[in-house]
């Protein structure tokens, strides 16, 4: 064998070894982690295989398939194979997750060992949940979780919910349009403005209106300005808060975004919120036909399918757009939510004409162990296994799973380039956008987590949807919401709501 052949053989062998370096006995058995193999840790496949839960049963209430329901079932099957436990997974529609757990909670029953839900359920659920034991909180796996998501899953410093997912609202846009020199010239000529990633909601609206109702990507179909979650009661209140933060979250005013913490007077009908709702009503003119009835699924399909220029909400629409089967893979960009040229100061009662931007760390998926469960150890081990490094890396690459970045190590662009085929610039922009929201801003808004949170959010959904439908003006609609909030506060008790709200305000006001 001559020298060239030897070197070639060595090179091929080395490349083969590199390609299979991550393969191990666990990835052979569980192809889900084929890209990384098992990754050492307290809850790795190797560690779990040493546990014996044979003869024990774990019951989990989770969301319907696929979002969160599919990974729950998949990891349940894996956990069962590794530990011998019998794991029963019950799938429930999103709208029923709260009540399906709350009814047995209040009756003192424990039909489920683990309940999946949204992190803003926390205040209502917390007395029925087992806090996460210190051994899990102190694990290296948990140390990798961003502080923002530790906070989201904790109550007054105590971790109650187990971090399994990361969520925030941010802007998604068609990079192939915004960065297109021809369109930049055309837009400048016709509007006198620069075509760029919108810095304010005003710019967002102008660009969305400009690119509404014509075929700007030459696919033979009409495209539209923006896809947003506007369907009543279908998470639309979160979209409204995303539009409101820039106008209403003033970094120089402490003591509450939703309420004045001292008086517990609702701030929801203040000029900042009214300005946001006025923008939103205007947005109904540049959404696709029927956009006023778009659920989150419609928004994902619309933007992910290449129908609109912009979108903003959870990660899913972006991940859908970047999947291999997407017609717009590597044609989308991400950016922080737009800001505003002015922000309301409720202390002075005047607008401040200064640029303002505020990330909305919106609630998202989480899971917790029921206090009444008799299988705490097994239940926490399951959650820890669900979120172990290997599973997490595999899960975030699958859009339909609904598992999104929440660890510091998730914000390394290379993992998206190497494992998911993303364009390096898009991956860098995505990582930077998300990380900046997590750790780069001190002007953040956290979700409302107070007793009776569903009553408050339902009132917002009803009021804002009346404005979107033209039944009420933005001011009238939000006055109605404020009146309803006042009644809810009175029913539950101002001190009770204040005590809970103060926990969230402390996070927002922390420097």
């Amino acid at each position, binding site marked *: 064998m001559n020298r060239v052949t030897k070197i070639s053989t060595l090179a091929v062998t080395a490349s083969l070894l590199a390609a299979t370096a991550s393969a191990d006995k666990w990835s052979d058995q569980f192809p889900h982690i084929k890209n990384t193999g098992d990754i050492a840790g307290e809850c790795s496949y190797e560690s779990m295989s040493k546990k014996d839960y044979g003869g024990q049963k774990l019951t989990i209430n989770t969301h319907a398939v696929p979002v969160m329901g599919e990974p729950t079932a998949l990891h349940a099957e894996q956990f069962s194979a590794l530990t011998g436990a019998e794991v029963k997974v019950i799938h429930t529609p999103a*709208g*029923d997750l*709260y*009540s399906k757990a*709350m009814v047995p909670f*209040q009756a003192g029953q424990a039909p489920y060992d683990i309940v999946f839900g949204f992190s803003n359920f926390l205040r*209502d659920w917390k007395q029925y949940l087992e806090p996460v034991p210190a051994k899990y909180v102190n694990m290296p796996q948990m140390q990798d979780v961003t502080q923002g998501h530790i906070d989201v899953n904790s109550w007054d410093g105590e971790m109650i919910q187990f971090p399994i997912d990361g969520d925030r609202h941010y802007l998604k846009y068609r990079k192939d349009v915004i960065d297109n020199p021809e369109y930049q010239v055309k837009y400048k000529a016709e509007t006198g403005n620069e075509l760029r990633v919108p810095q304010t909601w005003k710019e967002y609206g102008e660009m969305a209106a400009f690119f509404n109702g014509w075929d700007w990507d030459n696919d033979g179909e009409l495209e*539209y300005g923006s896809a947003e979650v506007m*369907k*009543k*009661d*279908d998470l639309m209140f979160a979209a409204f808060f995303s539009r409101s933060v820039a106008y209403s979250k003033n970094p120089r005013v402490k003591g509450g975004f939703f309420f004045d913490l001292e008086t517990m007077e609702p701030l929801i009908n203040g000029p900042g919120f009214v300005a946001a709702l006025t923008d939103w009503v205007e947005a109904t003119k540049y959404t*696709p*036909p*029927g*956009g*006023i*009835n778009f659920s989150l699924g*419609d928004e994902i*399909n*619309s933007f992910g399918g290449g*129908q609109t220029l912009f979108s903003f909400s959870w990660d899913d629409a972006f991940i859908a757009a970047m999947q291999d089967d997407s017609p717009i893979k590597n044609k989308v960009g991400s950016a922080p939510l737009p800001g505003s040229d002015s922000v309301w100061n409720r202390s002075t009662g005047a607008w401040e004409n200064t640029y303002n931007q505020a990330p909305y760390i919106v609630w998202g998926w989480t899971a917790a162990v029921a206090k009444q469960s008799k299988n705490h150890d097994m239940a926490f081990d399951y959650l820890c296994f669900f979120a172990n490094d290997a599973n997490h890396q595999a899960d975030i690459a699958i859009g339909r799973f609904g598992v999104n970045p929440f660890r510091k190590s998730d914000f390394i662009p290379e993992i998206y380039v190497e494992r998911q085929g993303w364009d390096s610039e898009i991956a860098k922009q995505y990582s930077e956008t998300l990380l900046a929201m997590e750790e780069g801003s001190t002007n953040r808004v956290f979700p409302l987590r107070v*007793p*009776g949170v*569903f*009553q408050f959010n*339902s009132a917002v959904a*009803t009021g804002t*949807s*009346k*404005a*979107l*439908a*033209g*039944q*009420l003006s933005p001011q009238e609609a939000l006055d109605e919401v404020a009146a309803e909030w006042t*009644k809810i506060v009175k*029913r*539950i008790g101002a001190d*009770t709501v204040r005590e809970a709200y103060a926990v969230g305000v402390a996070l927002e006001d922390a420097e």
Partner: protein
Amino acid sequence: MNFKHKYLFLLPGLLVLLGILIFPIGFTVRLSFSSWDSFYPGLDFIGLDNYIRLFTDDMRFWEAFGRLSLLSLTTVFLQYVIGFSLALMVWKQIVFQRFFRVLFLIPMMTTPVIMTVVWRTFFHESLGPANDFLSLFGMQPLWLSSEILSKFTVILVEVWQWTPFMFLLLLAGLLSLPKEPYLAASIDGAGPVRTFVYVTFPLMAPISIGAIIIRLIEASKIMDTVYVLTSGGPGTATETSSFYIFIKGLREFQFGYSAALSLTYLVIMIISFTIIAKILTKLMVRGS
């Protein structure tokens, strides 16, 4: 047999009745006098607070009730007219009579929620086939997003789903009609229209009233169609009483208040149906 033994034999039935009918209603009544919600679980006693709130401070419930009246009366009227027409069509000997009888029943045999999802996809304004087709003629109706058209869409889906039920009852009624009146009408030289007006319709009145009342009871509980199609939107344009009670009870977890809503709704329904039945009897039976 000892007189008391009779009661002993009735006891199992009474216990079942108590368990499945009286207890839930009694518990709902008790619940309606409590403030049970997500934060204060339990049967405390707050007197008539929930009822006072409902009658003095909840216009949304009454607006939803108005909408429910509009939707249920319209859908049941349309179902009756269409159902009767279809029943008359397959009552007589026609070609493929059996095929049509089965065909007309298919919508009722499908699962309402699933079919509503299909209808929602069909009427999806930007992704659905209805507007794909209509756009060829320059039309883009807002089936689910327009305040007026969304009501029409809900009515259309309800009519499609439940007309077969009306058809089935009315066809059974037609098949059971005596032949003699028709023979007499024929001898008197009555044509098809006169025969329908003076023979068929009056003879069918009792069963028509029964069918209409049964469908009105069902239509007044309209929930799944609204939930899936519009979530009560746009705004509150299609929000009905049962959907509103669902939101208060299972979304906002205000159990006590939703119990008060449910009982009030039940009382209104009982009164309404009694009045409607009397009016229908007067119009259709005595009027004939």
